[in-house]
């Protein structure tokens, strides 16, 4: 992009400085919602023709869209809203991005400096409120600080362990004029990104590999963040070490690869969970030992020494004691290790794993009378060859997607893993589609979560964003129902979603095509029709309420203590 017209040192208002700074950071689109305190900036949006703005229908939709854009593209997602409720409506979205290390820059307007602290109309201390869920935040008091702040915010958001950065700007600061100067470099003495790697640490790990009989690579979302999927594949192939991928690590290692074992954890496969429990050297590659992965942490991988490669030093030993820490960017670490690692004698170990896979595959009771949700996910996979971008909401459909849609490439699964935020599925798909306009993007939702953001269908309709919105409708909050069935002796409390709208009519009300299927024949037919639609489409699959996600490791149990199916209830 030619940026000379942007760099010109004109005397311009803060709002234009803000716009130019975003353009100089390479931003092509932003997601937002206007209001009083951010009006100066929205006047710049009106005047400019270089930056596309997508008007969400709720601020939470805007930030999830920015999040989906960032996860799908690897670029920084940008969200702009006004002060007070505009800003506070973002908090769930900020927390969602923060826990999953997604790079976002969030710009909030605030009341004029002279009104700060007076409980003015739509005044909220958003910097204070979001401190625990941002990587960093700024309150900009001086128009001369806007350009530097934006530059720093993008740098911080998208380096090291990535994350959301919030920039709060009072209205009068965007109105004041000053001479635009784009800083040539950032200077942050308290934020030094380690570019080097600690070679002896990696050498120690490589030496340990030589002794291991049952090594396992545990690949997490860090593989995606570091763009290290190819390096991981090469490392696994050269060493012969099998790979399990965490939920957010799915796609970081191709599921059709013979060395891929599966996804471990609460709803992990038998083979993946057993591989971890029998492992004698477990190497985390950008995974953070989340509690839904480890389950009972004191009985996690009981025979294994733990190695942990992570860009964030604070993750080492946070949840699981670590014998071989390796601090650094996963890609750099693997590139260093690759020429040094030798082929390990893992043939017997791989045979054991292959036996687990064939003796205990993922399974469900299929039916010809009713649609099974797992079968629906298999249908989506079969018809898209596993090559679509899939976003999910949160609940049972999320884990059926993880299990029955084998992912083949990085960034193709977009889901709220750490925060488990309902309402994420549709807006994140909008962002993913905007970032990949020619790709097939499917948003898989439950009938609960879709109602937390179904208003964003308006964005799909008005901008012709061709997301395929799938609603797996079981007429209950299924994951809660499952927990109440197992842990609360079938006392089903407040899970009945009766009164939900007719989803086909809801889609049509927005001018989006709506389709429904209640059996396999209809499902095949309407899904083909949906794929042929050029624009957005909503497809409702009506499934039974009583279907559970298996395998499941009950709370407090170790990974090998799975319930594999209904028959073990």
């Amino acid at each position: 992009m030619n940026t000379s017209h942007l760099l010109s040192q004109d005397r311009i208002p803060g709002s234009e400085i803000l716009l130019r700074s975003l353009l100089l950071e390479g931003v092509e689109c932003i997601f937002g919602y206007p209001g009083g305190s951010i009006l100066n900036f929205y006047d710049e949006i009106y005047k400019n023709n270089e930056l596309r703005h997508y008007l969400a229908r709720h601020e939470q939709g805007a930030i999830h869209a920015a999040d989906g854009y960032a996860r799908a593209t690897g670029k920084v997602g940008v969200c702009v809203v006004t002060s007070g409720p505009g800003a506070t409506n973002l908090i769930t979205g900020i927390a969602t991005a923060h826990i999953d290390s997604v790079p976002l820059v969030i710009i909030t307007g605030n009341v004029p400096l002279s009104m700060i602290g007076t409980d003015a109309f739509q005044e909220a201390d958003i910097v204070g409120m979001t401190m625990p869920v941002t990587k960093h935040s700024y309150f900009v008091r001086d128009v001369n600080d806007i350009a530097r702040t934006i530059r720093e915010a993008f740098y911080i958001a998208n380096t090291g362990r990535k994350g959301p950065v919030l920039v709060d700007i009072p209205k009068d600061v965007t109105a004041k004029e000053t001479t635009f100067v784009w800083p040539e470099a950032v200077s942050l003495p308290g934020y030094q990104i380690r570019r080097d790697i600690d070679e002896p640490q990696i050498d120690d790990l490589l030496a340990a590999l030589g002794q291991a009989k049952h090594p396992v690579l545990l690949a997490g979302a860090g593989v995606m963040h570091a763009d290290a999927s190819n390096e991981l594949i090469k490392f696994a192939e050269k060493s012969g070490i099998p790979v399990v991928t965490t939920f957010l690590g799915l796609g970081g290692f191709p599921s059709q690869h013979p060395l891929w074992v599966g996804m471990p954890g609460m709803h992990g496969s038998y083979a993946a969970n057993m591989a971890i429990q029998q492992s004698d050297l477990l190497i985390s590659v950008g995974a953070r030992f989340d509690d839904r992965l480890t389950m009972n942490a004191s009985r996690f991988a009981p025979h294994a020494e733990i190695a942990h490669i992570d860009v964030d030093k604070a993750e080492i030993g946070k949840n699981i004691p670590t014998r071989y820490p390796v601090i650094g960017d996963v890609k750099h670490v693997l590139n260093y290790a690759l020429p040094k690692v030798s082929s390990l004698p893992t043939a017997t170990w791989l045979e054991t794993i292959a036996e687990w896979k064939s003796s205990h595959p993922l399974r469900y009771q299929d039916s010809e009378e009713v649609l099974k949700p797992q079968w629906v996910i298999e249908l989506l996979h079969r018809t898209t060859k596993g090559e679509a971008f899939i976003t999910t909401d949160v609940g049972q459909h999320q884990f059926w997607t993880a299990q029955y849609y084998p992912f083949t490439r990085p960034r193709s699964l977009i889901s709220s893993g750490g925060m488990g935020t309902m309402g994420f599925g549709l807006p994140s798909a909008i962002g993913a589609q905007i970032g990949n306009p020619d790709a097939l993007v499917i948003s898989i939702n439950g009938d609960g979560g879709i109602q937390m953001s179904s208003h964003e269908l308006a964005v799909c309709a008005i901008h012709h964003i061709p997301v395929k919105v799938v609603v797996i409708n079981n007429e209950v909050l299924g994951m809660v129902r499952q927990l109440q069935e197992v842990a609360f002796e079938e006392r089903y409390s407040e899970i009945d979603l009766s009164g939900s709208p007719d989803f086909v009519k809801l889609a049509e009300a927005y001018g989006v095509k709506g389709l429904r299927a209640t059996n396999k024949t209809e499902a095949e037919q309407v899904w083909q029709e949906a794929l042929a639609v050029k624009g957005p489409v909503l497809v409702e699959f009506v499934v039974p309420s009583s279907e559970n996600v298996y395998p499941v490791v009950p709370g407090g149990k170790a990974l090998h203590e799975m319930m594999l199916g209904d028959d073990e209830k």
Partner: protein
Amino acid sequence: MNHHHTVAILVNDHPGVLQRVSALFNRRGFNIDSITVGPSEQPGMSRMIIVTLGDDRIMHQVINQVEKLIDVVNISILSEEPLVARELALIKVEAEPVKRPEIMTLAETFRATIADVSSDSLVVQIVGDTEKIEAMIELLTPYGILQICRTGVTAIARGRKPF
């Protein structure tokens, strides 16, 4: 095993930095026994001294999590090396004129000073490590303590060690 640790944190002198550090301690479940902040020898930077309670694993987490804050330039555990640790206390004691000499002698023994005298009270100012201050308070208690204000511990490494 839980121990008290004295941590020195060099931070940018920006608004909200104290909040960032204390919020992080709170969120991660780290304890703060005392906290002091003041300008450092470097322009634009302040030094915080935090006394915290935790075992080795928690201290490791404290250091790594605090280090991640963008406004934190440096953090070190002072109490791993020889250090000088001091706090200041102002203790207001009931003191009828007849009791004054006795209290003043007591203060003198502790190298404390009398910061204020009124008709029926004294303010004793004492600087020292935490144990010394507690001992002073204990000895003054029988006279009737009206108020205690303590700064919390500030500390510095012995010798030429920069931090």
